[in-house]
């Protein structure tokens, strides 16, 4: 049992590039899934059955099947008809997956904003949409924050799965480095440590966000 971390040092620039890709994907998916989740939730709640039932179906489908299966379907399935880069498939796949989870949260929190708030706003002369944007959604967003930030912390860990469809995030680049250096333990331990540090930072961020949200509600 001998450990040799010098290959890890040698490949540090490549690893860091992988970390950068992971973080960029994380930001892109976070924006897409939070904004998209809110839009999907509003459409689901405020449109006729014919419009919203397919949305409800897709939310349900994304939540009851594994991410990797969804990624394979998108990658091999859609790749069958049109050629799209893996990175786009990855971001869209992860984005849709978490959009469903976030929409599910928004649907619950929008419903939880009391009808009294709605009536108060309408009685001031605000219209239906204005009430939604100025009164209901901001409150719903604040209430959703704890679960949203939880989802985003889980999502960042799931970026590692994108290596399965060949996206150059940090697990993928380590697999490449391992194929050259034959040092799987050293590389995967390094990845574990990096992920743990990212997680600690995200948890600190979550605490900060939640304190602010609690202050506002």
């Amino acid at each position, binding site marked *: 049992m001998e450990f040799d971390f010098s290959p890890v040092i040698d490949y540090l620039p490549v690893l860091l590039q992988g970390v950068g890709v992971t973080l960029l994907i994380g930001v892109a998916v976070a924006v897409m899934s939070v904004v998209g989740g809110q839009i999907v939730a509003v459409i689901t709640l405020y449109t006729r059955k014919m419009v919203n039932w397919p949305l409800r179906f897709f939310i349900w489908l994304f939540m009851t099947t594994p991410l990797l299966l969804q990624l*394979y379907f998108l990658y091999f399935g859609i790749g069958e008809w049109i050629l799209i880069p893996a990175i786009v498939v990855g971001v869209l796949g992860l984005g849709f997956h978490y959009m469903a989870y976030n929409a599910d949260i928004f649907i619950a929190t929008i419903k939880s904003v009391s009808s009294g708030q709605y009536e108060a706003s309408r009685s001031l002369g605000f219209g239906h949409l204005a009430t939604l944007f100025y009164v209901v959604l901001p409150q719903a967003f604040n209430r959703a924050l704890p679960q949203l930030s939880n989802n985003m912390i889980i999502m960042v860990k799931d970026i*590692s799965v994108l290596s399965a469809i060949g996206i150059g995030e940090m697990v993928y680049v380590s697999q490449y480095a391992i194929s050259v250096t034959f040092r799987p333990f*050293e590389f995967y*331990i390094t990845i574990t440590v990096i992920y743990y540090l990212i997680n600690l930072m995200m948890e600190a961020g979550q605490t900060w966000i939640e304190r602010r949200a609690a202050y506002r509600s």
Partner: protein
Amino acid sequence: MDFNLMIEIAPLLVQAAWVTVDISARALFFGFFIASALVVLRTSRIRPVRWLSRAYISVVRGTPYFVQLLLIFYGGPAIGLRLDPFTCGVVVGAFNIGAYMSEAIRGAIESVDSGQNEASRSLGFGRLTTLQYIILPQAAGLMIRSVGVLAIILVKNSSLVSIISVVELTYQAQRLIGSTYKPLEVFTLSALMYIVIIYAVMGIVEFLYRRATRYTFL
């Protein structure tokens, strides 16, 4: 949709789905014991034990299951740990879900009103007998529900062992997409199987939950 193809590949997928169930059930079973041990150890009188078990829970929950799987399967031999793919999936799954489950069990125990503990202690029951007769029966409902949520995550996570070539549902689906060029058919069938498994888990959880909380309806 090519229904003939679906009928043709269904047996293969059912077989693979069984592997998914098998690996998840075993991981859940062992995970429960790991979780129970962690619940006890994290409040141990011995400081290093307490510290280590909390650190373990924090690290496992703070890193991806996928990376843990790769670390143990490919990196394991470097520390003398050689596991076949299926065993590796069970072991890593159990140790992973055990950390989450220990938090779920602790949360359920802490949710029981502190007056229950006082009343029991004032009758002369000790810590352990209080846990056995008073606290656990009342925590059971919440515990079953949160373990149920984790069991579903475990089933979905088990798809990742396809990467270390365990022939479970996702592995088989990927292979069939490649060989049949019919992604929609394969996806529909395999998704359906995951849904059936997950709904079965939900049904069992609901049944156990009703039994554990029967007293609230009587």
